[in-house]
């Protein structure tokens, strides 16, 4: 009974927004075509088409990869904690969360392909895996996580129609999902955190920091998707659900800023030249200081104010705006993390490293690394963002993932259904 009443408004919405949705799909397809064209161009010219060179040898693909891995957290962690810790208010977002988790991790995995110099040798990863490499473990956990999310989505879909039969499986999936999500972010963090050559990365704080910033950005993403669903799909988010989302974002943002700040203090007080060389770039006055402001003000203080100060909190759209700013802040943190590790290499003496390409107008050496993404990189990344948006929109439309509305009108029916099953 509850499911039929819930499905009705969604169906009505679909017919009503028939035209705008095709415009939206057309935009996403255009982005994907641009990305594909950029990749074909890159295949032709090699990675010389990117802004990366021998000093800063990882760029936009890698920090966007790490960013999408982080985004995939929120959904699964939210769905799992709703079950494990019995947070009823978050249960309506379970399927939307798992859908976005699956889409994010798929896009993150694809993000690696254009970063490879020899993408058509990728099968070597399966033929000759080197088990001491964190990258192999990351590929393994990404694969597991993707399969898990897809299976979890299927289980939750079945649970929505036959709650009594699938209830115990949903519970088992939740208990497995939580550690899997934490492991995914830790292993991705260890790609960077284990490297002795980069003092900026080489901290045991890396894995906890990745987990907490993943929860932060992932929750913000699911919040945004839910608000979009509310806006376009005429479903209503319960005040309780908003409260929990706000709570998740505020607490993880506090922990995230605390970890980053603790790392800054350790480096500042210790004053070890190699560590300071990286930190000085991002602190106010450094050449990458805009990242500091985006991270601490745009993605830190402003969202905190929007979510905590009662007058701002009651403003319509404050939760959505805070979510967008938080995501921007976490992206800035990913750029800071990856790129600043490269700018000042450990062995840094004049004239520096050979850059690996020849341009008659400039020196073949670089003492301090430089990096600006090219349009090829931006195009490929936007193409994959388009793919992500298309996957989520398509999944949302076809799977009706927002079933039990838990709006004020529906709360009673939903709560009886969950407790009764």
């Amino acid at each position: 009974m509850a499911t039929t009443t819930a499905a009705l408004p969604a169906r009505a919405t679909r017919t009503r927004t028939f035209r705008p949705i095709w415009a939206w799909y057309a935009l996403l397809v255009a982005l994907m075509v641009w990305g594909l064209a950029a990749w074909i161009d890159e295949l032709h010219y090699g990675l010389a088409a990117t802004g990366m060179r021998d000093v800063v040898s990882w760029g936009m693909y890698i920090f966007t990869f790490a960013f999408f891995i982080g985004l995939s957290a929120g959904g699964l962690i939210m769905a799992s904690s709703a079950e494990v810790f019995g947070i009823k208010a978050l249960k309506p977002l379970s399927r939307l969360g798992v859908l976005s988790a699956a889409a994010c991790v798929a896009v993150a995995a694809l993000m690696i392909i254009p970063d490879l110099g020899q993408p058509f040798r990728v099968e070597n990863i399966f033929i000759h895996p080197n088990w001491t490499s964190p990258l192999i473990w990351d590929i393994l956990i990404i694969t597991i996580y993707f399969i898990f999310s897809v299976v979890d989505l299927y289980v939750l879909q079945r649970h929505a129609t036959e709650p009594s039969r699938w209830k115990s499986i949903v519970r088992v999936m939740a208990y497995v999902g939580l550690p899997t999500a934490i492991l995914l972010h830790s292993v991705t963090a260890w790609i960077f955190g284990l490297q002795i050559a980069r003092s900026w990365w080489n901290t045991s704080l890396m894995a906890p920091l990745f987990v907490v910033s993943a929860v932060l950005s992932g929750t913000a993403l699911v919040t945004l998707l839910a608000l979009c669903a509310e806006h376009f799909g005429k479903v209503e988010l319960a005040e309780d659900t908003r409260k929990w989302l706000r709570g998740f974002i505020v607490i993880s943002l506090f922990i995230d800023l605390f970890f980053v700040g603790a790392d800054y203090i350790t480096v500042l007080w210790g004053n070890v030249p190699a560590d300071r060389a990286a930190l000085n770039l991002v602190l106010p006055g450094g050449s990458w200081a805009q990242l500091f402001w985006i991270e601490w003000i745009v993605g830190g203080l402003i969202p905190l104010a929007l979510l905590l100060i009662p007058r701002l909190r009651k403003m319509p759209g404050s939760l959505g705006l805070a979510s967008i700013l938080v995501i921007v802040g976490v992206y800035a943190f990913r750029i800071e993390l990856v790129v600043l590790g490269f700018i000042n290499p450990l062995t840094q003496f004049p004239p520096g490293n050979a850059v690996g390409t020849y341009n008659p107008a400039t020196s073949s050496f670089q003492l301090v690394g430089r990096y600006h993404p090219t349009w090829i990189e931006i195009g490929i990344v936007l193409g994959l963002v388009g793919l992500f948006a298309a996957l989520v929109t398509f999944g949302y439309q076809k799977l009706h993932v927002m079933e039990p509305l838990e709006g004020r009108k529906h709360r009673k029916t939903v709560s009886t259904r969950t407790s009764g099953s």
Partner: protein
Amino acid sequence: MAAKKDDYVPHHVMVIDTNRCIGCWSCAIACKQINNEPLGYFWNRVLTTAPNQSSTAKAPASDNLDVPWGTYPNCELAYLPVACQQCNDAPCVKVCPVQATFRRDDGTVLIDYNRCIGCRYCMAACPYGVRIFNWGDSQYAPGGVVGYGKEYWTGDRLVFTPERPKGVVEKCTFCVERIDVGEKPYCVVACPMGARIFGDLNDPDSEVNELVNIGGGEQLHPELGTDPNVYYLPVAKRVPGES
């Protein structure tokens, strides 16, 4: 010297005497020639440092070559030739996801150019910044020397080819094709000051054995535990009053 058995594996080591280095870049140029390194590539570089300085404790006076460190009258100048350090516990070997970078029993770290997928994780992991990626189509100086000019295989691994494919990482090979037939790496031959000494550390009578064990040969960044097979003899500072 004891008679060597057929399955004897030497331990190849290079010692660089920084007292003798005059910063002429002959080793870097010789390296470019024998290995046919394209324009903008240097497997071997001669860095401008202060004496016995292996990490950047203070900022250099300039980004350019041959500018003394410090401010007048407290200026210092020394050279540090850096190529692959051929680590025994090499971070690049540990991180390579496809075992394209590997260490031979003689201590040389090599790259299989047929297997590398171009992920560049090894470049992120190397503390010495000696790895170079083939970003695009290589450019060569017209009429340049082609050098060794043939492929070289260790077992089924392609460890040298005159033109490395686009999208793989390359680096110093200790001139594997030369040391396997008993010759010395080409930079050792090319150094006009005899600052580079190459040999077998397992041979107790070798010059490298003496320089490493008695002569005070030091590794770059020994604190990282990478245990390189390239050693440096420190610059001996002159005591005032002595000639």
